[in-house]
């Protein structure tokens, strides 16, 4: 019984092993190791241009690393067919938008594409699932609206619902809280937190250090295509690390809800 459950839920859902990514001569990621376990909400932080988005899309199997490999449930990610991969990994693009003013329901249903064969229409089960997901993400009232009429917060929720509709094991979200007000930031993070139960996990790129400290189980700190530190939030987000990576003095208030306030630039 025990061995059964161990087999069905691998210890590591997603692993990046010594990953190196290059564009021409420029090194975007070097010697990166990441491990994502079930139940975890993992934060990816670092200054602009550190390589966070590149790392996230590499984890999603959208970039092929020039060295090292990405393992999804202990199997190289290239061994999966694109549809199999898409059923396991949900990727939420930064500031993603729809190119046609389709309805919200249709957009969320696009998340079912990895499960449909070429000629198959979405079944009643697909419709039920999409309905439930829209309910959970608070999109139900929007379902007949055109996606181009949505506000930033609504659009993020709809895009999250679209990603969840693929029923991924690992959700990879690139700055889902960017351009959201504080209320919608908390709502989005609560939804991500709620996703990371049982055998599922989430990797999220964040700029807000307080949000990262508050919600994440573990944090990876990237700078200049290298991994600087990783571990539990308050261990990574210490004043020394932040000063050396961002060049900013911060004040850290530990407590039930941690807060990190930038004070001044050091350079």
């Amino acid at each position, binding site marked *: 019984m025990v061995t059964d459950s161990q087999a069905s839920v691998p210890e590591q859902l997603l692993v990046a092993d010594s990953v190196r990514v290059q564009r021409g001569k420029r090194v975007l990621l070097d010697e990166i190791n990441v491990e994502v376990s079930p139940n975890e909400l993992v934060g990816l932080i670092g200054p602009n241009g550190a390589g966070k988005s590149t790392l996230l899309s590499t984890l999603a199997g959208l970039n092929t690393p020039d060295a090292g490999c990405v393992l999804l449930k202990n199997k190289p990610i290239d061994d999966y067919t694109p549809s*199999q991969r898409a059923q396991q990994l949900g990727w939420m*693009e930064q500031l*993603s938008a729809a190119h046609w*003013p*389709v309805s919200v329901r249709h*957009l969320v249903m696009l998340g079912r594409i990895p499960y449909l064969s*070429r000629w198959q229409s979405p079944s009643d089960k697909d419709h039920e699932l999409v309905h439930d997901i829209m309910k959970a993400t608070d999109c139900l009232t929007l379902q007949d609206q055109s996606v181009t009429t949505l506000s930033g917060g609504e659009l993020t929720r709809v895009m999250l619902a*679209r990603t969840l509709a*693929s029923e991924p094991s690992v959700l990879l979200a690139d700055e889902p809280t960017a351009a959201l007000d504080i209320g919608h930031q908390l709502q989005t993070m609560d939804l991500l937190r709620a996703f990371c139960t049982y055998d599922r996990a989430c990797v999220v790129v964040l700029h807000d250090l307080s949000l990262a400290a508050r919600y994440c189980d573990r944090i990876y700190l990237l700078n200049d295509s290298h991994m600087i530190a990783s571990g539990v939030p308050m261990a990574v987000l210490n004043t020394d690390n932040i000063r050396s990576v961002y060049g900013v003095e911060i004040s850290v208030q530990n407590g039930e809800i941690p807060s990190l306030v930038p004070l001044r630039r050091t350079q």
Partner: protein
Amino acid sequence: MRVSTIPFLHIVLGLAVITLAALSMSVGAESIDVLTSISRIFSDSNDVGAVIMREVRLPRTLIAIIAGATLGLCGAAMQGLLRNPLASPGLVGSASGAALGAVTILYFGAGVFHPQSVPVAGMLGSLLATAIVYLLAGRDSNVTTLILAGVAVNAMATAGMSLLLNFAPSPFAVRELVLWTLGDLSDRSLSDVWMMLPCTLIGWCLLIGVGRQLDALTLGERTAQSLGIHHGRLRWRVFIAVSLAVGASVATTGMIGFIGLVVPHLLRPFVGYEPRRLLWVSALGGSAMLLAADIGVRLIPTPTAMKVGVLTSIVGAPFFLHLILRSRRDGYR
């Protein structure tokens, strides 16, 4: 609620195509009513009416249906692929490449001795132009690069045609070449229909089943890729389909502008802006529009017969302008 509108739209457009086809069979210098005309196609009689039906109006009507469907379908596919309502088969050079190929054959007079060489040259020209656009734009490049490459190849094709016109041996040859590029459905025979049909059908078949992938592209290339869509393969497939189908059509009819642009755009709101549902609806719409335009040029009293490509351009160009102005105002990409 919206689900039921698709078959309904198909039925309406299908009926429109049938009605217009019947009208197209009965309109002309010799007025023959629809029912007798249709019965005469299948009769063995050799009276004037039956011959007109079989040799003149039937090919003309069939070509309008096939070419119109091709333009509408390929327009919808290109717009879905490039996620741009201003895209059309002409944009990636398929149409002008085909025209250059066909005009080259006409120029050297081979068309007289080997009539089938014209559509073949058209298709080759179309494939070549599309391949050049594709190579110029690169495998993973963005939509803007692709459009710029299309503009460049279109310019080259136009330059080639100008060169041929410049060196045309006689004013009659110039006239023939120019008239050919205008786009016309008259004086076509059933053998023209058989000539264009194989390649257009292959093109259509290649576009069967791309609908869902085009739907996924609504979310952008990267997200579509994350949903398991192989974007490079999809792009190749649509490009080859469009150049085969449009190449064969243009080689038979000459350049008929704006149908591939206008039809998908008009029908898009009725299918909830979903690229997949737009594809085959646009094929029907394209047929209906080209049939209507071709009936129009026969009914509009002009000193010499007006070419159908001229009519679609006269109506289409202002519409295109309106589209640009509106897309600027709405600001959707």
